[in-house]
């Protein structure tokens, strides 16, 4: 018996060692980014490297705002992410409800046709999308950042699954009370779909905040860039000033990290849900 318990104990120790080295590999780069952002340039590139800054400085963070319009980039990212998330939740849930619960001719054919978008890689659409935005005269504007992303076949699919799992009794009652289908959706079904909406909202936010290629293409003036494009720009301009770049990267990732810290459960369940549904 003792032998067995011992064996179990060593097993546990090995599991912890593996998991903790994984933690080190996962967090190490973030810690190194933070430490570098607090050093001055000469300290950062000293050989052999200094691990802890002798006298931590915050000037790199201020320099980011001096060298690029970082505040504007922040604002652009916040606004474009907020619009994308809100619009997707509205448009997708509205269409998803109709596809799940209303009966109209051609419903299933239209739904399957729209889903075809999911089979095509997103970069496939990018060139014509760019030309449309250009034609609309919207290059280097805030709306350029979010317009094509307002419409999501994936979100509609996800929420349709969700609406289909909700019982129809409530709707029938609402219809008898004289609610039209839109009112039923808005007042009764939407509140019930909250877990699905949270899931989609998180996935969309994660995409909108972190997307690189599209913002890079449409907005090339610095004042109209998002944080991702701004970081890419900074790296092109100040590519040897590592402390400043680390400070910029640090600031760009912090909002989502804070949101994640607060809504861990929703983030993790939102992601896990896509796998189960898939």
């Amino acid at each position, binding site marked *: 018996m003792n032998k067995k318990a011992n064996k179990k104990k060593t097993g546990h120790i090995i*599991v912890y060692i593996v998991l903790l080295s*994984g933690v080190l590999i996962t967090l190490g780069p973030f810690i190194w980014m933070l430490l570098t952002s607090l050093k001055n340039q000469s300290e950062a590139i000293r050989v052999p490297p200094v691990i802890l800054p002798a006298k931590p400085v915050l000037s790199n963070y201020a320099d980011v705002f001096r060298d690029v319009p970082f505040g504007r980039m922040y604002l652009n990212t916040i606004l474009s992410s907020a619009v994308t998330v809100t619009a997707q939740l509205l448009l997708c849930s509205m269409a998803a409800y109709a596809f799940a619960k209303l009966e109209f001719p051609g419903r299933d054919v239209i739904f399957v046709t729209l889903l075809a978008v999911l089979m095509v*890689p997103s970069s496939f659409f990018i060139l014509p999308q760019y030309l449309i935005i250009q034609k609309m005269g919207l290059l280097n504007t805030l709306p350029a950042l979010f317009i094509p992303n307002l419409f999501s076949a994936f979100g509609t699919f996800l929420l349709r699954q969700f609406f289909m799992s909700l019982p129809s009794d409530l709707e029938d009652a609402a219809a008898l009370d004289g609610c039209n*289908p839109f009112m039923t959706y808005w007042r009764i079904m939407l509140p019930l779909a909250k877990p699905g909406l949270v899931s989609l909202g998180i996935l969309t936010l994660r995409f909108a905040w972190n997307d690189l*290629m599209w913002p890079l293409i449409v907005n090339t003036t610095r004042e109209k860039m998002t944080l991702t494009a701004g970081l890419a720009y900074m790296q*092109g301009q100040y590519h040897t000033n590592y402390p400043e770049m680390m400070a910029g990267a640090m600031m760009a990732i912090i909002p989502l990290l804070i949101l994640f810290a607060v809504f861990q459960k929703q983030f993790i369940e939102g992601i896990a849900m896509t*796998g189960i549904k898939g």
Partner: protein
Amino acid sequence: MKRKRMSRRKRSHILYGYLMIAPLAVGLGIFYFYPFFKVFYDSFHVVGAFNKTSWAGISNYAAMFRDRVMWSTLWNTLRYVIVIVPATLALSILIAALLNTGIKGRSVFRVIYFIPAITMSTAISMIWRWIFNGDFGILNFILSKLGIPAVQWLSDPKTAWITISIVAVWMNVGYEMIILLAGMQGISRTYYESASLDGAGRFQQFRKITLPLLTPTIFFVLITTLISTFQIFDVIYMMINSKSLAKEASQSIVLYFYRNAFEYSKKGYASAIAIFLFLIIMLITAFQMKMQNKWVNYDQ
């Protein structure tokens, strides 16, 4: 009376049905369906100044087959897929399985491992570029302490793609682990209980119960990683600058598409590349549909 009410309800379903899908359908039509056909159109044209197009037949496709860079780009991309997909899958299954053993602190580990999945790839690439820096990077310093000579991780064409693969795996593992762990937790405990009564050890339980019952989730993760790795862009764009010696040896299909479309102004050619990539993805999807029933164990 009743009949009339029913038909009114029917009519309102039809009216509201169309109204409620209209904004989405119109938006998808303009920004996804029209572009879809436009790419095909453009791939048979030369797109010149002011986006004037002139018929070019199959010359863009012919040029693609003659283009040495296109072939090396394809090879690079396959190389990324062959390394990144299995490595990510193996590591995320390992971590999910370890977290599923009922050890203490599971939720803390889960949160930490998930952090890279919500961090922007742009920022992640900047950090790793600094860590992998050949002259001042911390990694080469650590290696030198172990007696390993300095490696030019990113500027050497021989190693650049490996470096990028490492970063990509690091970025993907947490995300996949979450999905796999959720799948593992969906497996009923009774299987394990009866197995351990029969004297099956942990490893045997994992092989005989967890893996087979997890095949739908593994398959899902495999296909999504496969598709996303075929489209790898951000990390390479950020870590290898366009003057680097390793530029060609690390370039992926999407990056080459991007450069043709937006840097070299060869929009027709870029469209042909986009269609090539689309065909690859379609092949994977067809494979997925065919194999799903064969390999995947859905009865649970």
